[in-house]
């Protein structure tokens, strides 16, 4: 046998034998299976890495410190999809029945969220889309398996507008103002357009829309148009590679950074550090606070990094890392609620849906989870999968993000009817009956 044939044969045998060689979990052990769709590679990896690391580190800490959740060990498993919707769906299909069944999915991709909305409904698996995904999915009766939590894109858009109008001396002062909406030309970026148009009609400001071609590398044409329009404010719905280029281009046309406000996916260290001095003064929305001083982050440092483990120490305490950690604490709270209600440790995905609809993140729970001051309180219900919530505006000073606003609540008088209208339309198009609550 030649060396080449031997090597090929050995590799082939190893590949075929790999599934058989994997250790089978002990049958008696209670486990909780949390698959995570991640994108550590590709054009959106700069945002994908810290969100993946936050989740990975949190569950490693829970297993290390507590031996799991109430004694049920957490099986955290990543599936790389490179922010490609088709690969994200494939990851979902591949993992959903592993280890007794997936409890919940959190793809950090609006495209994947849209693709999985119907599938998770059929499979009865919750889809946690905190701060992204379908804006109308907060209507729990129409989307019983989707949990946007906190606020959605429409709520965020109205909140950013509220902040801008406060800077200008009130909503009446916005009548002769122009807001430029610069957005990534994909499902995610377009999500905010309807509510901005509604606000433009209602409050009388001029709205200019500027799509940026995916993935947002070359934006010169966009910024030339922005320069010509001379807007009073720029609002950005960007993600990944697009953001830091946009910040640099805005500086290139000498637009004042403090009047350039990104949404909460355009406000991380990954967006501002590569942009250098151009980012000083730039603002963004955020619903979680950056920093390492919070108890939950300290626990991760102690129990994960302190023992030489961990996914990426450079991300610890960053905006996106902390956001992912907060998301995991909400899942954790949902698991605890379901375990208590149903009296089992190894809960099912259907039981976790009940748990997610009954979490109460108040001051006491926040203290218990170690997230006091890190994120606003929320209390979702069966009907309301957002659960209240608010967010802040933060500003980059060249080294770190600083909060520059009080908590901002969305204009729910605008957002809730719009959500209900499109949710009703969705049910009608799909021929579905609304879920019943209580």
């Amino acid at each position, binding site marked *: 046998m030649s060396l080449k044939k031997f090597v090929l044969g050995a590799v082939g045998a190893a590949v075929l034998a790999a599934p058989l060689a994997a250790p089978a979990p002990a049958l008696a052990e209670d486990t909780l299976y949390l698959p995570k769709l991640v994108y*550590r*590679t*590709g*054009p959106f*990896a*700069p945002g*994908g*890495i810290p969100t993946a690391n936050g989740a990975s580190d949190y569950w490693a800490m829970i297993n290390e410190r507590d031996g799991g959740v109430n004694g049920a060990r957490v099986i955290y498993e990543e599936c790389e999809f490179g922010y490609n919707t088709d690969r994200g769906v494939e990851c979902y299909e591949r993992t959903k029945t592993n280890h007794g069944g997936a409890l919940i999915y959190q793809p950090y991709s609006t495209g994947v969220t849209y693709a999985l909305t119907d599938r998770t409904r059929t499979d009865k698996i919750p889809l946690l889309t905190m701060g992204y995904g379908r804006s109308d999915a907060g209507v729990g009766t129409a989307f019983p398996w989707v949990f946007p939590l906190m606020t959605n894109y429409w709520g965020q858009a109205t909140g950013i507008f509220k902040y801008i109008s406060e800077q200008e001396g009130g909503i009446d002062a916005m009548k002769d103002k122009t807001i430029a909406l610069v957005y990534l*030309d994909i499902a995610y970026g377009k999500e905010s357009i309807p509510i901005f148009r509604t606000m433009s009609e209602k409050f009388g400001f001029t709205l200019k*829309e*500027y*799509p*940026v*071609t995916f*993935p947002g*590398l*070359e934006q*010169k*044409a*966009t910024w*030339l*148009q922005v*320069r*010509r329009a001379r807007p009073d404010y720029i609002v950005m719905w960007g993600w*990944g*590679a697009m953001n*830091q*280029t946009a910040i*640099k281009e805005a*500086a*290139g*046309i*000498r637009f004042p950074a403090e009047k350039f406000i990104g949404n909460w996916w355009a406000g991380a260290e*990954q967006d501002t*550090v*590569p942009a*250098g001095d151009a980012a000083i003064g730039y603002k963004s929305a955020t619903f979680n606070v950056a920093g390492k001083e919070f108890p939950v982050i300290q626990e991760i440092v102690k129990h994960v990094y302190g023992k030489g483990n961990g996914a990426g120490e450079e991300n610890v305490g960053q905006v996106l890392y902390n956001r992912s950690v907060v998301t995991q604490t909400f899942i954790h709270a949902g698991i605890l609620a379901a375990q208590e209600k149903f009296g089992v440790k190894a809960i099912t995905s259907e039981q976790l849906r009940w748990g997610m609809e009954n979490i109460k993140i108040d001051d006491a729970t926040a203290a218990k989870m170690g997230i006091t001051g890190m994120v606003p309180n929320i209390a979702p219900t069966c009907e309301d999968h957002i659960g209240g919530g608010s967010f802040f505006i933060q500003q980059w000073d060249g080294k770190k993000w600083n909060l520059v606003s009080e908590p901002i609540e969305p204009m729910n008088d605008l957002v809730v009817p719009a959500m209900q209208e499109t949710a009703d339309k969705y049910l009608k198009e799909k021929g579905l009956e609304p879920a019943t609550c209580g």
Partner: protein
Amino acid sequence: MEDFVIEFMFFLEVLFSGLLTGTLYSLVALGFVLIFKASGVFNFAQGAMMLFAALSLVGFQEMLGVHWTVAFLLTVVVMILLAWCVEKFVLGKLVNQEPIILFMATIGITFFLDGFGQTLWGSDIKPLDIGLPTGSLDFGGIFVDQLELVAGATAGGLVLGLAIFFNKTKIGRALRAVADDHQAAMSVGISLRNIWIIVWSVAGLVGLVAGIMWGSKLGVQFSLSLLALKALPVLMLGGFTSIPGAIIGGLIIGAGEKLAEIYLGPFVGGAIENWFAYMLAMVFLLFRPQGLFGEKIIERV
């Protein structure tokens, strides 16, 4: 009248900005042309080589804490090594195979380099600062990006250097001989192996220069490899074998897509510049199938 002047100034700004962006596309396209010209292989991996070179440059700077010139030299060594590996393990085994086989092999190289580069150096956006000027200059209300001015000058310098290399040096003549006919070149004693290593090394060096320019503008990140898609319409338009064609093609595509985005985009919802570039190239192909400067291929039946 005043409105007209303002609008005309804006038009000039768009045009000039498009031309400068076009030179940045040309830098990427040059690497494709070099390898196609010398070996008849359409190197799909050129974008990945640019990313790999830029990642290596920043990686050496971060890892060793050295001045960028030292990192540049180390990266040149890496790109020569890469060229050697490509010849040794991929192309060397495929001599005299159909061009489509060689093309498919370069697709394989693309995915390998994309993945290997990120595994080796990470997937975060890395700022690249070698002291190139940033920000814009104000010429009577027309803003011109300083970095793009440097890129334009660099592209011009590269074309001049490559033209001399191809036309005035012995190696350049050997490269052209290999491009005309592999077997005939080998029969007169030209080492195909060495020629391929040289041309892939030069393409790697061009990729490094393009990577520095784009990396300074966008940060070094995975998306740089996608810029290869921006170079394709430039090649279609300029011709796959012409170095000046890559420059002229870049200028036409750069200016064309910016003007289209700004003056036609609003009528069709915007974000048209990517596909418009390809459409523009195809319109040119209707009149000159070999591209503006490409060699007309006549085969006897």
